[in-house]
């Protein structure tokens, strides 16, 4: 359980990081918090030739402006969790963060790292998709913005191009009167979720039972313009259960995961509607 040998560069700026990644070619990898990458290194599931450490590349800003929260790639998950503005400006994220790993891994894990890693069972990518956020990347062909819905392809695969680095993520701030809720079920606290649901207004998105964060458009259409009620929440849950098609896991059958997703959607909607 020791990483294979690699070269290491501690980038002092974004430009330094991009130059090092370009020089390192396709076997170079950025490292931020390392809470997913280092286990993979330890188990030798990945063997990069070069690690470019971006922790000191100046990507740790949190800026509130024009209805958007711009979060630098290396902002720690714990920093966001303890920022009082997260509760008011990003209530969905505030609800999801306690589910991300453990208290201690959140001290090191970064927001941008979680997005770039693109684990289909990760909470922050689901929140970013549910909120209609954006990923800002920089690289050999310059800076570009990618809508979250176009970023995640499947487990651990994104539309990032070789040499590109996530530099920040843009999170639409809470709208007055809009309701948010996050729900997940994991077998033990801190474990990967069996299923997870994010509600933002009439947008319902699911993760863990899909290979990437997925907005259930039909559920949104069902909710649009309707008066909230327990019956509507139940109907939305039942529809969600029919829409997802998860493979079974060692813990649960597909039928169980479909049912669970329906329950979580119903629960999330009820909680969103009764929250103030």
């Amino acid at each position, binding site marked *: *359980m*020791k*990483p*294979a*040998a*690699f*070269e*290491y560069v*501690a980038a002092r700026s974004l430009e330094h990081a991009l130059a090092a990644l370009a020089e390192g070619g396709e076997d170079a990898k950025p*490292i931020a918090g*390392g*809470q997913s990458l*280092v*286990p993979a*290194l*330890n*188990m030798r599931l990945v063997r990069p030739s070069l*690690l470019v*450490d971006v*922790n000191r590349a100046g990507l740790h800003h949190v800026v509130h402006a024009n209805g958007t929260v711009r979060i630098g790639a290396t902002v720690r998950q*714990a920093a966001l969790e*303890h920022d009082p503005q997260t509760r008011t400006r990003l209530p969905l994220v505030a609800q999801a963060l*306690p589910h991300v*790993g*453990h*208290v*201690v*891994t959140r*001290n*090191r894990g970064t927001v941008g790292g979680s997005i770039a890693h693109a684990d289909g069972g990760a909470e922050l990518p689901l929140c970013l998709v549910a909120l209609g956020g954006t990923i800002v990347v920089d690289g050999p062909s310059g800076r570009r913005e990618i809508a979250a819905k176009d970023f995640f392809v499947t487990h651990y695969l994104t539309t990032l191009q070789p040499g590109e680095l996530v530099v920040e993520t843009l999170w639409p701030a809470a709208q007055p009167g809009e309701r948010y809720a996050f729900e997940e079920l994991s077998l*033990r*606290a*801190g474990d990967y979720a069996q299923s997870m649901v994010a509600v933002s207004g009439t947008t319902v998105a699911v993760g863990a039972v899909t290979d990437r964060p997925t907005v259930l458009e039909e559920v949104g259409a069902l909710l649009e313009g309707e008066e909230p009620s327990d019956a509507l929440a139940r109907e939305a849950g039942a529809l969600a259960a029919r829409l997802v098609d998860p493979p079974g896991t060692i813990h649960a059958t597909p039928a169980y995961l479909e049912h669970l997703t329906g329950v979580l959607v119903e629960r999330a909607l009820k909680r969103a509607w009764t929250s103030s």
Partner: protein
Amino acid sequence: MDVELTVNGRRVRERMEPRLLLSDFLRHSLGLTGTHVGCEHGVCGACTVRLDGAAVRSCLMLAVQADGMSIETVEGLAGSGPLTPLQDTFRRHHALQCGFCTPGILMAVLGFAEDYDNPTREQVLDLLSGHLCRCTGYAPIVDAVMDFISRSPAGRTA
């Protein structure tokens, strides 16, 4: 590469391979074997140390990443002197048996006590979910942590 950091208040300068984990650097290079290694992939919590005050998994960090930073391990608590209030609280509550998980829990609790204002019992349970203990059944650990965090900051250090 050459790395300079502070460990338990002492300046340390070492040449190391980039792939050396912080946990192995502490144990093998510095002989600080109080930091235990269980799973080496961030699940068991035994290797938790404090990095510039924040509790982190030392098996999920490269030692070179700690360049210029300050590390505190369990050896930095009491040393050869009397137990610190946190350690004494664990002793009084019988919050350890074999002791393998204890150093990681102590370092995590110290960071947690600073980061969370008036944490609930549920939040303490959530913290401890990141630390595997196979002896105690957790109940005395939870009691010890609740006892410790219920004190004023002065009572935690005195």
